[in-house]
């Protein structure tokens, strides 16, 4: 028998929806919410989604399961009154400097205040002004803008299993806090930025480095060299009305030139270098008798931080290969060294990333050579969009342009690094013995692709089966590690990306839900398909780099030993 509900007098069928809110949304009514994300547990804090039942009772639709024959109303005088008061009270306890807020135009509180036409706030904000936490390289916490919806707390503990922040104190003095009110940089925060991605207001935002990059661009003695990560190209276009997944790299390159940067390259070349190094390590590890742990990938700085803080004893099993960004950063700094000296210039290396943790990675002591970082600034996709808006570039009207020489060739393997499973697939392409086009096609279907949080596949290698796992979301990684430690599972190679869905879903990207994230990943695979070079080792630049710039310096420029020390 079909089940149905009466919503505002209309029959609406439902099947397995967990709550009335989902049924109401199915019926085409977008109820306002702050604290509801379908990926997270239900909290029912904001009360914006209230509905009225047939007896006049007010219930939160997000936390009430649907029942057959249930009658509810979403638009009644009572609800009108309640929603406006809730919003007015939220606004009363909130900093209202909208024009100078980084979230201006992207803030859910602002959006709902506009949608509900709140004419003014009658109540005084009696909360004392609390200081910002700017200790992190990746995020800024502003408690004055917090509405206590708890989205950040839930994403941090439920999806990422980090739990760096939680609710503390009670009643009017309740706040989101780290343990013992420490600076966020002194906690086990991994800098993934997912808290900022779900924050409906400006309470947690991504640390902005645009000002410093502008200064470098405006300084004639500084050579600004930019690298662009794979995941960026399939998301920046969204800010200009392009479909998620549409590769707008040509337009991005053209706009960056207008911005005034001096050279633009692709991080995918760095990824090709990473594969050469990581695949070699993988082959080495396969030779080790009785190795309990797999080789873990090392591209994701949030994952590295997670291992350092929660599984320090597993650090020796993480690949020592630097991330593509850091490898390429080292190459860029080396490449321009002589030229800089001759011309009296200084090269400023900027990386455009989908990621907030990359900001932290770039600042790590381990990536400084003679005290100088290989990456000077990391800009997120969102920051680049902000910079382009600032100078008024019509992204959509620009003719696509090509990268600069000499680092303009990259493989499809390097491009798919931005999707969960991409790093593993690139490595498999490298280690697979059969190099025929058919074998390449087969690799596509061994189970490495797709947005699932955990993927396991097997691959014949010599006289054995390689077991490979691909996980995204640190919670999934945590569960997998527990199984590996308990001896329940054995893997040879494990790829981990901290953000659920991989780098395309990074916190530095424009806001996205699961559909958009999937389209972005598909966009990367499409790009790979259209590239002639499929494998990292087939990239002619890789060979020339190894024969020249990297010669006898592979260890120094392409590998890293983490000190496991304190963050910062």
């Amino acid at each position, binding site marked *: 028998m079909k089940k149905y509900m009466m919503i505002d007098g209309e029959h609406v069928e439902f099947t397995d929806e967990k709550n009335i809110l989902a049924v109401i949304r199915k019926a085409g009514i977008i109820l306002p919410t702050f604290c509801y994300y379908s990926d997270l547990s239900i909290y029912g804090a904001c009360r914006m989604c209230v509905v009225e039942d047939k007896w006049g009772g007010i219930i939160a639709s997000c936390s009430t399961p649907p029942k057959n024959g249930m009658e509810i109303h979403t638009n009644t005088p009572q609800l009108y009154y309640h929603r406006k008061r809730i919003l007015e009270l939220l606004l009363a306890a909130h900093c209202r400097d909208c024009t100078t807020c980084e979230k201006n135009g992207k803030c859910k509180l602002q959006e709902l205040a506009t949608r509900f036409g709140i004419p003014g706030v009658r109540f005084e904000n009696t909360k004392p002004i609390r200081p910002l936490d700017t200790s992190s390289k990746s995020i800024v916490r502003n408690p004055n803008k917090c509405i206590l919806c708890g989205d950040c707390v839930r994403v941090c503990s439920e999806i990422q299993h980090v*739990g760096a*922040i939680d*609710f503390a104190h*009670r009643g009017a003095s309740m706040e989101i*806090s780290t343990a013992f009110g420490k600076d966020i940089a002194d906690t086990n925060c991994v800098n993934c930025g997912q808290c900022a991605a779900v924050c409906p207001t400006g309470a947690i935002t991504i640390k902005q480095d645009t000002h410093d990059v502008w200064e470098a661009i405006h300084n004639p003695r500084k050579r600004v060299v930019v690298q662009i990560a794979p995941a960026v190209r399939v998301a920046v276009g969204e800010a200009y009305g392009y479909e998620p997944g549409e590769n707008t790299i040509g337009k991005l390159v053209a706009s960056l030139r207008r911005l005034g940067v001096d050279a633009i390259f692709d991080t995918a070349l760095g990824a090709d270098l990473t594969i050469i190094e990581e695949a070699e390590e993988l082959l080495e590890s396969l030779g080790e008798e009785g190795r309990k742990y797999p080789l873990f990938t090392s591209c994701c700085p949030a994952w590295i931080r997670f291992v350092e803080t929660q599984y320090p004893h597993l650090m020796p099993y993480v690949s020592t290969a630097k991330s593509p960004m850091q490898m390429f950063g080292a190459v860029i700094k080396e490449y321009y060294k002589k030229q800089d000296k001759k011309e009296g210039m200084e090269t400023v290396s900027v990386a455009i990333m989908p990621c907030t943790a990359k900001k932290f990675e770039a600042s790590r002591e381990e990536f400084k050579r003679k005290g100088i970082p290989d990456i000077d600034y990391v800009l997120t996709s969102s920051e680049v969009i902000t910079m382009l808006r600032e100078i008024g570039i019509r992204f959509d009207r620009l003719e696509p342009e090509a990268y600069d020489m000499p680092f303009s060739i990259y493989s499809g393997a390097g491009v798919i690094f931005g999707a969960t499973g991409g790093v593993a697939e690139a490595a498999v392409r490298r280690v697979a013995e059969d190099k025929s086009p058919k074998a390449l096609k087969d690799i596509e279907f061994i189970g490495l692709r797709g947005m699932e949080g955990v993927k396991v596949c097997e691959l014949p290698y010599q006289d054995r089966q390689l077991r490979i796992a691909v996980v995204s979301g640190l919670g999934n990684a945590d569960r997998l590690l527990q199984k590996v430690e308990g001896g329940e599972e054995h893997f040879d190679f494990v790829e981990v990306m901290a953000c659920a869905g991989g780098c395309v879903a990074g916190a530095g990207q424009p806001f996205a839900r699961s559909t958009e994230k999937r389209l972005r990943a598909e966009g990367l695979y499409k790009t790979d398909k259209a590239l002639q070079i499929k494998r990292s080792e087939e990239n002619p630049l890789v060979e020339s780099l190894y024969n020249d710039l990297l010669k006898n310096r592979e260890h120094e420029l392409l590998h890293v030993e983490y000190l496991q020390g304190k963050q910062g």
Partner: protein
Amino acid sequence: MEAKEQKVMDEILESHSYDPTAVIAIMQDIQQIYRYLPEEMLCYIAKKLHLSEAKVYGVATFYENFSLDPKGKYVIKICDGTACHVRKSTAILDEIRSLLGVTAQNPTTDDMLFTVETVSCLGACGLAPVCTVNDAVHAAMTPEKARELIKELKAEAGVGEEAADEN
């Protein structure tokens, strides 16, 4: 954390079978011994119970009864519920505070002997105004009786000498 303290922690955790849902009871046991919740001990139980430090901190700060600051040997709680208040508990509070030189912001004496707190109701309105010293209840208090009480407690602790921590 010293080995001795770690042993105490392990015993407490063991008695609750390392059950993370018993975190409140575990904290009560810790506070019973140390009179407050030292940060390092909270971090230790967080690790052992597989809870985040932020979560444990959240629980510890939610309840008024848990303290993250060290408390004196004698914790004096003066009831300021309605019944006690109308029977002039404020005068008793003022008297004790001025005797010991403590305030609402700094409720503990420098020698770590006394901590003075108010409490919203001790549930003993028939004995109003009432106060407790650790677990002992003192009924029908007056400022004079309060002075006497402090004197007795000081004598008991042997004040003038070092106030030894007997726990």
